[in-house]
């Protein structure tokens, strides 16, 4: 398991796309928003949590189709299926690798992008925590979606259509937690519910992912 994780991380680093691309995309989204809505503090401040969450979500979406595609093409996915490591664990590892290469950097970078959007100072902590809790769920759901579309030649667009509706609960609770934090309200309810969703995703989706992979490898 650890070896697979290390291998995936190494591959993502070497290909270069994983880390840089997602972050750059996130930055571009954040930079474009003020052009769209205007630079005033009163406009930017209330929408900053939502923009940051939506941006993180889209950035995470960007690299999803690479989770399984290469392994499927060169046959190492079939090899994984026959190895003693259960496919459920392989799915979990893939999701973790995706999170370490995209979710974690996004989380760490988000507060800096918050400056750009003139976010409420009280909200930074909540932003960090909610992204930290929420992005693993994004990776796990995305891994499931990637497994669904792995056999398809042009699965990219379909993948977004399948995965984005599944992101709704995570997004709602995440952005809500930050918004409440920014308004000085109690955000613990939203954070707890979000943690519940993430835990649920990790409890159920590795099995669904493995089932889907077995079907696609048939």
């Amino acid at each position, binding site marked *: 398991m650890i070896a697979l994780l290390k291998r995936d991380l190494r591959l993502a680093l070497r290909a270069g796309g994983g880390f840089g691309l997602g972050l750059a995309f996130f930055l571009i989204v954040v930079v474009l928003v003020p052009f769209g809505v205007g630079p005033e503090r009163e406009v930017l401040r209330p929408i900053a949590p939502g923009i940051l969450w939506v941006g993180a979500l889209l950035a995470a979406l960007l690299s999803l189709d690479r989770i399984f595609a290469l392994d499927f093409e060169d046959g190492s996915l079939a090899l994984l299926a026959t190895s003693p490591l259960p496919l459920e664990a392989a799915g979990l590892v893939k999701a973790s690798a995706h999170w370490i290469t995209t979710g974690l950097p996004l989380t760490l970078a988000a507060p800096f992008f918050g400056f750009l959007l003139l976010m409420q100072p009280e909200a930074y902590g909540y932003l960090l925590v909610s992204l930290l809790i929420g992005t693993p769920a994004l990776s796990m759901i995305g891994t499931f979606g990637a497994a669904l579309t792995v056999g398809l030649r042009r699965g990219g667009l379909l993948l977004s*259509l399948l995965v984005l509706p599944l992101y709704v609960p995570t997004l709602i609770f995440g952005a809500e937690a930050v918004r409440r934090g920014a308004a000085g309200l109690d955000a613990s309810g939203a954070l707890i519910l979000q943690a519940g969703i993430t835990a649920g995703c990790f409890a159920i989706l590795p099995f669904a992912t493995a089932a889907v992979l077995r*079907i696609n490898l048939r």
Partner: protein
Amino acid sequence: MSMWEYANPRLFMSWTRSVLPWTFGLAGVCLVVGLVWGFFFTPDDFRQGSTVKIIYLHVPSALMAINAWIMMLVASLIWVVRRHHVSALAARAAAPVGVVMTLIALWTGAVWGQPMWGTWWAWDPRLTSFLILFLFYLGYIALWEAIEDPDTAADLTAILCIVGSIFAILSRYAVFFWNQGLHQGASLSLDAEKNVADVFYYPLLVCIAGFVLLFVALVLMRTRTEIRARRIKALQARGQHA
């Protein structure tokens, strides 16, 4: 003979052939009676005026939009557990019908909301849930269309439907958390305390029966289409090998 025998494709084709015209006829009768009754012969509500007549379309279509998804979920589960091909095809056949029901519910809701709430659209929990449901339908249909091999497609869409159902329920509660709504409570429930008045109630029941029957008829017809399409594929594949 167990009930599963009815799911044998050949038997399914034979019993649906005789049942299909009846369901369509009955659905048509119910819809015409219910809608004409509702449109021409019911009084206006004292607060909502004549817009109350939209209920005869809005409530049944919203009901069927959700029930269609539940039916797809049940059919997917049957496919996963018992591997009845008809079941998988029925789930596929139901999805576009569900999309149309969702669209009708959204459209009539928007048209009703404009004079009543003063807005076409509000990010109200119920409305938002329906929009999300619509997206789920689109993803489901797109996945069916994208996959070449029919059994793989049936398997993958079944799993998507099951996982999607979980997330649809989660989303529903999440949007309640996110925004309190404008939408009124349930118009109908079995423990009738707060239901709509009788004048509106009976035509509404007829309309609901009409929508249910129409849904059944459409799903049966579309399933027959899918079975035939499958057979064409199988015959052509055999022809190529020979």
